[in-house]
């Protein structure tokens, strides 16, 4: 970089603190923890998409030698109808307990019905086959539009659509209706020269983390419980487990393992309460690990959706009105990310008249979990495709059209807030100036562009900083590190302290060793936990200055902290040799004891992020296969604390979006059973499917953070689908509206558009 660096450490590419552990196999992930005498826990799952559980007979299983405990829904107390935050989404405790272990009904294929703990996996497996469940199979519904129809099989007889007036009397699968309004959309369309209206769909896709869910629980006779688990939020796991099992928070200590990917999918509990309950009943530690098939059938995925977009624009490209309807599958229990989906839908643009309606719809599928910018990619797929159609119709460059309508500081969003300092315009300009966009499209290829927005999250964080006896520093936080956050936190601490990055050791502590931290999610860790680390470090620096003041017998205001040492603030203070961290640490006992810093906060002012992606691809008209030749992700990242891991977020998100666009989907048979619960048939991108993913980091610092951090992890999954769809439309003249644009679907659409010659 030629530009002069403002910081010594922030913005540099240091080796991550957990690097050596992770390249040698030393790092311990969820399934790598064991305890002496542990039992193996396994779950019996529903073979039916929708069925009443008339009775469960576990007597034969319990009598099998080697079986030490069996649990069913009856082992988990009833919970109140109460919402709790889970990642970026909300969950209802009454539903959470039913998703962990079914009570009156099985609501999807794969729903947990019972679980056993036994001395070996083979015995546990045999025990499952001995459990007798008497089901009354009910009609089921998989598709979101089907589930909304009158006469659809009803999942929850008590469910009435929230947000509709007057309150409906009839049960419905529509859990909630929400509405956002800005200006007057109906009137706005009157001013438009062109109006485009289309309907789009997406299929559920799984987060696809490579590490399956795993948990090891050890419950002691005195009621104390320890749990090791792979999660994005061990404090959330503690909270859920304690509520579901009537434990006090202080009775449960949760240690997070290294986490092998989450992307939102590890913000809820599945195995953890079951492992604890089994351990309580058996009096021994219980380890549970999901198979890949269980991961697909019973965890995640994100919603599939149906989106209708109507957009009006003037000849000069000004978008004057948008009317959007979004219906998202929540899975078997209410709570899809339809809220964020509606909020993000039009947030890239400064449009006078916007009307958005959302529906949260239950159907007989696994309960959805957050997946990277939950909900936003679904509405963006539709909205950005229509923006591209406007550009095509008006013959305006797609980036210029977006620049004309771009949201900026002062733009009032349709969901409420007015934007502060944001970088949508800068991001579009950087995209336009990128080597990729300036290059000529190769013959036979076509180019697509799309944008994305995510508001980013702040929330609760705690951190501590300790000075060791030799002057080295430990930074303690409580967010599992999924993508290099320890490195970013250490960089900020080193910057504050003015010491070598290698002298700062960041660790992720268990629930008993640091104060509360909300989940690793919503792109909040580098922002909010980063803020807590900065504040904890500043608290420690305050201590260090006091110790120096004491040794020098001067006022603390006469001491400054610079380049890792305490110095007199001016020559007037007196002539003192600077005191390094090591020297102050050595004299700590004489000056007031150990030197530590602490911080806890609820971080406000998360800076919204914007991204623009550019893709060049070609379509094989015979097979419908798309080959991506070049891909660039441009994003406003605030400040890139560790540029390599910021680029990594952009690249990884883009790859997931490419999978979402071209291949990934849940496929069901007529009985509501998932047909592709494995990596062979649920096809995620592999290395040979992708080109290099170029990145352009735009830095418009977030004023609410001392280093200008904006969350970066969510935005990059939002633009790929529409960028690819638009490139395909430009390559073939066919605008695809249903995801994924898999080879069979695309070749069928191309055939329909251009009937083959009879001779062929």
């Amino acid at each position: 970089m030629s530009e002069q660096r403002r910081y010594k450490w922030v913005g540099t590419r240091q080796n991550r603190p957990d690097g050596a552990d992770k390249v040698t196999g030393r790092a311990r992930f969820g399934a790598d923890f064991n305890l002496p005498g542990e039992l193996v826990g396994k779950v019996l799952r529903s073979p039916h998409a929708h069925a009443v559980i008339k009775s469960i007979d576990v007597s034969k299983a319990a009598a099998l030698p080697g079986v030490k405990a069996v649990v069913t829904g009856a082992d988990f107390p009833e919970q109140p109808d109460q919402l709790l935050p889970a990642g970026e989404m909300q969950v209802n405790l009454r539903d959470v307990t039913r998703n962990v272990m079914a009570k009156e009904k099985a609501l999807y294929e794969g729903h947990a019905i019972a679980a056993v703990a036994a001395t070996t996996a083979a015995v546990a497996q045999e025990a499952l086959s001995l459990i007798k469940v008497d089901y009354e199979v009910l009609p089921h519904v998989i598709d979101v539009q089907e589930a909304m129809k009158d006469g659809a099989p009803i999942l929850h007889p008590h469910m009435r659509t929230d947000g509709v007036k007057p309150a409906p009397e009839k049960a419905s699968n529509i859990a909630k209706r929400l509405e956002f309004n800005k200006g007057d959309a109906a009137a706005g369309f009157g001013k438009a020269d062109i109006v485009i209206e289309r309907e789009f769909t997406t299929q559920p896709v799984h987060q696809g983390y490579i590490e399956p869910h795993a948990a090891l629980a050890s419950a002691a006779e005195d009621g104390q419980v320890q749990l090791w688990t792979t999660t994005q939020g061990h404090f959330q796991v503690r909270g859920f487990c304690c509520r579901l099992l009537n434990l006090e928070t202080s009775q449960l200590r949760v240690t997070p393992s290294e986490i092998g990917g989450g992307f939102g999918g590890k913000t809820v509990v599945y195995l953890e309460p079951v492992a604890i309950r089994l351990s309580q009943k058996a009096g021994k530690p219980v380890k549970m690990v999901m198979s890949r098939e269980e991961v697909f059938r019973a965890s995640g995925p994100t919603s599939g959706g149906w989106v209708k977009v109507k957009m009006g624009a003037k000849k000069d490209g000004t978008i004057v009105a948008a009317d959007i309807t979004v219906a998202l599958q929540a899975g078997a229990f209410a709570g899809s990310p339809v809220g964020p989906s509606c909020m993000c839908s039009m947030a890239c643009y400064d449009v006078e008249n916007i009307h958005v309606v959302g529906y949260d719809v239950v159907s007989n599928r696994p309960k959805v979990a957050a997946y990277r910018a939950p909900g936003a990619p679904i509405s963006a797929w539709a909205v950005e495709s229509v923006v591209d159609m406007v550009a095509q119709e008006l013959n305006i460059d797609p980036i210029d059209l977006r620049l004309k309508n771009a949201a900026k500081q002062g733009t009032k969003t349709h969901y409420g807030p007015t934007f502060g300092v944001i970088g949508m315009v800068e991001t579009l300009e950087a995209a336009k100036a990128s080597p990729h966009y300036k290059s000529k499209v190769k013959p036979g290829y076509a180019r697509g562009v799309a944008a994305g927005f995510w508001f980013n999250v702040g929330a609760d964080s705690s951190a501590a900083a300790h000075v060791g006896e030799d002057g080295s520093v430990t930074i303690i936080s409580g967010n599992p590190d999924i993508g290099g956050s320890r490195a970013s936190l250490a960089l900020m601490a080193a910057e504050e302290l003015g010491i070598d990055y290698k002298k700062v050791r960041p660790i992720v502590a268990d629930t008993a060793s640091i104060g509360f931290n909300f989940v690793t999610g919503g792109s909040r860790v580098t922002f909010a936990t980063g803020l807590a680390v900065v504040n904890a470090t500043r608290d420690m620096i305050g201590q260090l200055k006091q110790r120096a003041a004491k040794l020098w017998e001067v006022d603390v205001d006469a001491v400054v902290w610079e380049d890792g040492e305490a110095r007199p603030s001016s020559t007037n203070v007196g002539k003192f040799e600077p005191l390094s961290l090591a020297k102050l640490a050595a004299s700590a006992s004489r000056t007031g004891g150990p030197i530590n810093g602490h911080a806890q906060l609820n971080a406000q002012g998360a800076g919204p992020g914007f991204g623009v992606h550019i893709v060049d691809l070609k379509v094989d008209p015979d097979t419908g296969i798309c080959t991506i030749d070049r891909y660039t992700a441009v994003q406003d990242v605030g400040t890139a604390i560790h540029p390599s891991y910021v680029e990594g977020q952009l690249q990884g998100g883009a790859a997931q979006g490419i999978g979402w666009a071209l291949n990934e989907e849940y496929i069901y048979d007529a009985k509501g059973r998932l047909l592709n619960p494995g990596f062979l048939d649920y096809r995620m991108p592999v290395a040979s499917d992708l080109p290099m993913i170029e990145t352009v980091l735009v830095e418009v610092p977030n004023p609410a953070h001392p280093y200008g951090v904006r969350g970066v992890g969510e935005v990059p999954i939002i633009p790929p689908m529409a960028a690819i769809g638009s490139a395909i439309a430009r390559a073939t003249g066919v605008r695809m509206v249903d995801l994924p644009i898999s080879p069979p679907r695309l070749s069928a659409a191309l055939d329909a558009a251009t009937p083959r010659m009879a001779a062929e």
Partner: protein
Amino acid sequence: MSKTHVTTTINGEPTEYLCEASQSMLDVLRDELDLTGTKEGCGSGDCGACSIIVDDRLVCACLMLGAEAEGRRVLTIEGMSHGDKLHPLQQKFIEMAALQCGVCTPGMLIAAKALLDRNPNPSETEVRFGLAGNLCRCTGYDKIVRAVLDVAAEQRETTR
């Protein structure tokens, strides 16, 4: 069920173990020998997280039986570094941020080593196809491919 007695070499060490006839090599490594660096992502040969090298061949440990290791040489991620020195691929993965969560990393490194052992001068396309059996959901593969190409170039430099 009587167990099978296996004599083999793992990471250069003569090793003996007992395993069930149906036990996979992955389960033997992880559960019997405490070599948990080799990961299970699918158990069906589709993700490569369990990659090991058996007699110079890249193998999914989840698709091999523990009994099949009899008389062979097995390399796992725990045997990739030399003493306190990381293998150049390991070093480069750290330096170039070729891992995010790191769960695919052991398998990815083993597969990359197998590739470079076979083909010290791979093109980008050859690297991409050489690693196509190893899923990574975090990185989009960009930095992984670059790291492998970089190591290959450096090794050619030093052997010249």
